[in-house]
């Protein structure tokens, strides 16, 4: 087995996935926070976010490809767009689904709206937000394998060519690291969740 090539593929796979979800989070988290403040835009924004989610992966990449070319960037952008749905939705639901009494209590002890947001809404919503990111991450790992069809790197090439040439070894050398990555990402976010809970 070609270990350096495999490691490069794993590294590229992880890079594309994390970058895509990170961009999705950088856009999605503030977006959800803004929607909590300006609720009347909620329906409009979410209908766009939902619509993006329904675009088939390859079709999405074909559209994005026209702007960013046949490379990793196209996959990163596609993942960012797909991440909006789980991240924005979960964050919004987490931030708004808080018992009205708790908010009123905060206001009662003289907290400013900003303090209510950072001191009450955000900490309570955190598990929901992390679940959203976790969902986005695991979905993104599998989207990255599709990147092979628009000329991007990652483990997709090994998996696809392995299936094509009935080369079980090659296929597994891509599929096993891909599923391990998914397991590690799950564990990592779980660990982060626990730590955040303790630090509160």
């Amino acid at each position, binding site marked *: 087995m070609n270990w350096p090539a495999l490691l490069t593929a794993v590294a590229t796979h992880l890079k594309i996935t994390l970058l895509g979800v990170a961009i999705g989070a950088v856009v999605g988290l503030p977006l959800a926070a803004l929607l909590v403040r300006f609720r009347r835009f909620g329906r409009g924004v979410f209908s766009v976010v939902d619509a993006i989610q329904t675009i088939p992966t390859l079709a999405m990449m074909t559209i994005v490809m026209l702007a960013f*070319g*046949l490379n990793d960037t196209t996959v990163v952008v596609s993942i960012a767009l797909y991440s909006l749905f789980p991240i924005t939705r979960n964050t919004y639901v987490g931030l708004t689904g808080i018992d009205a009494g708790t908010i009123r209590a905060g206001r009662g002890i003289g907290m400013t709206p900003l303090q209510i947001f950072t001191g009450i809404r955000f900490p309570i919503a955190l598990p929901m937000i992390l679940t959203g990111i976790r969902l986005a991450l695991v979905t993104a790992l599998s989207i990255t394998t599709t990147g*092979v069809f628009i000329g991007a790197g990652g483990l997709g090439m090994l998996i696809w060519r392995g299936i*094509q040439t009935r080369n079980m070894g090659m296929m597994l050398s891509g599929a096993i690291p891909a599923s391990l990555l998914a397991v590690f990402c799950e564990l990592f976010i779980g660990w982060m969740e626990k730590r955040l809970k303790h630090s509160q």
Partner: protein
Amino acid sequence: MKRNIWRRALAAVLLLPLLLCAGCGKKESVTIGSKQYTESILLGEMYAQLIEAKSDIPVVRKLNLGGTTVCMSALKGGEIDICPMYTGTLYNEVLDHALDGQTSTEEIRAICQKEMDERFGITVSEPQGQNNTYALAIKSARMDELQARSISDLEEIAPDLRFGADHIFYTRTYDGYDGLVAVYGLQFREALKMDSSLLYEAVDAGDLDVVVVFSTDSLLRKYELTCLTDDKVLFPPYEGVMVCRNAVLERYPVLKTLLNSLTGMLDDETVQELNYQVDVMQRSVEDVAKEFLMKNGFI
């Protein structure tokens, strides 16, 4: 109405980078694409090596792209410059003409060459020689027993034969199972549907007598099957050709001759053999392409 606005907003957001990037695509190289299966990747690799050997143009490989749609968008957008294609695919999927069995191989090729040029500014090469279309195949060892060389030869013995094809074959209007019955009048004892990967196993084990395959598939060699001649021309032509953006041909005139250098160099058996080397013998695409080009004196 509200929805409409959001849709427009989405379109604007998606199109914005496109506008920003327009005009930043000038590059000093030629990019070769291919579709996501061995034959296409092999052909793409061959042209890549050919261009590298016969010119100074730097070659970028974007092989293994996800199908005709991706390849055509990439060609139109200038993301790739050269790509292997099939006349039937261009005629049917890209140019949107129906493959109704009324148009000859030569006419289809001529229409592809003319319309691809006019509509997309893309040149279609002369055919390389292979025709990757549907075919009926039987075990080579049984050719004498069945006395069959062409599909017509099956007419009398069909009621004793078991036939198998994948699901898609039964749904095709002109060139599927219905066409086979209409054009050749074949009435098989049994006509089964199964996944194409199982067809080979089934005919090899003797559970099926006649199967529908793609004429350049490497597994025809692995399982020692022979394709019957389509003597009444039921199946549309899928002649292997190279397509190239006209803009690139103007920038690198040497490509005009290179694009046609494989013309007539391939046939179904040669491509089967090349696919076999990659799919079954597990050799690398680069090696197999290089070997072919060296054997034929190209490099």
